[in-house]
């Protein structure tokens, strides 16, 4: 028998908090070429940012004694970058998502409401249009896998475009 957590997982919806995409403050992101095994606050601006040097050869920095070479990578056109955080479980949603008493909302009530008690929220805490990609000792260059990954949206657009009429 499935445990309640798993059963709920298949039916649980995660709502994107309205307005959080538009209101997300700019965020500074670096993609490091190494494993950091924890996720936690870190004094990036105090120790990493001041060590970043920009010279004729591009961006240089060091992390734990290892040399890093970097380049700025832009988010693909038509897309925006966001840092998203899921909010804690357990908070009831009823009433929370209905931020206004618009008449429009009444029309939605004709159908089953999208929000249920056991749903969760996710919101954007930061936005970005580019990030710094770091390579260990060498510049990542055009062959870096992340560049191929960033080409995925345009391929996806072709696969999922409506087919032409006969």
């Amino acid at each position: 028998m499935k445990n309640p957590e798993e059963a709920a997982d298949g039916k649980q919806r995660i709502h994107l908090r309205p307005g959080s995409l538009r209101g997300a403050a700019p965020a500074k992101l670096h993609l490091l070429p190494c494993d950091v095994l924890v996720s936690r606050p870190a004094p990036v601006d105090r120790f990493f940012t001041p060590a970043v040097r920009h010279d004729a050869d591009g961006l240089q920095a060091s992390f734990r004694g290892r040399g890093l070479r970097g380049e700025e990578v832009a988010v693909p056109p038509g897309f925006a970058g966001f840092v998203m955080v899921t909010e804690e479980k357990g908070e009831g949603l009823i009433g929370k998502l209905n931020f206004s008493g618009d008449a429009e909302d009444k029309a939605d009530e004709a159908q089953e409401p999208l929000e249920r008690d056991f749903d969760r929220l996710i919101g954007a805490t930061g936005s970005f249009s580019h990030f710094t990609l770091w390579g260990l000792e060498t510049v990542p260059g055009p062959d870096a896998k992340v560049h191929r990954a960033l080409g995925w949206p345009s391929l996806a657009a072709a696969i999922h475009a409506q087919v032409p009429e006969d």
Partner: protein
Amino acid sequence: MAGGRDRGDLAARQLVFLLPEHLKDASKKKKKSSLLFVKLANPHSGEGATYLIDMCLQQLFEIKVFKEKHHSWFINQSVQSGGLLHFATPMDPLFLLLHYLLKAGKEGKYQPLDQVVVDDTFPDCTLLLRFPELEKSLRHVTEEKEVNSKKYYKYSSEKTLKWLEKKVNQTVVALKANNVNVGARVQSSAYFSGGQVSRDKEEDYVRYAHGLISDYIPKELSDDLSKFLKLPEPPASLTNPPSKKLKLSDEPVEAKEDYTKFNTKDLKTGKKNSKMTAAQKALAKVDKSGMKSIDAFFGAKNKKTGKI
């Protein structure tokens, strides 16, 4: 976040997402949430996968995760383990409906749509029925008839294969436009005429595009599509190299390998395993569930198209 309580691994996980830009405005007009992440059946595997739905624009988005070994994020004044990059890209919802039409199609009779799209495991599939545009596109994969102003649908494999062929063709156009390397073969121009190279390349493009489309359809349908596209089977000589005759000898059999090597390997393997901390294991579990790795897009297809 500065000066906040140090919660270590208990800090809320930050997801790095790329979303279509217009979704910013989607949440502007209405204050009610219209963007939902839901679990739906992956049309290729049938297993659960996470999708994003915009109920106002009536748009479906596929979530793909790009993951590269040994990467992490600095995000403002924090570090995020794993280095994952999530993509939400528009997805043709007809692929999801096709999953249910194929099941219902086995009965071979006309049915109303609300009886076709039924799933106890992923009940949110019914949200797709709120997309009026989707019903119009059903003609690509079904025969339909109307009785008392109500519509009934029956799966049509002929129509579906034609629709998928068009999908493959528009994917080929995009592959060429993006200069995706579809063939692993190294060809010397001295040995081939331009025409032959062009023809072989064309087949590689079609095969690659077929592989991409196959991520959204069951294997059975993928095989049917391969035949429909007249993709040739891989040459038999490559898959079945001639087997060598077993050499028989009168000499007594002697051990040729030092089996203590395996013990050494086991020890090394053990060391490797012990390096993975509990945090990394937990992260690996979390990251993989419900999301398809984009590595499959790059790695697997290259293997398929590679030729020795």
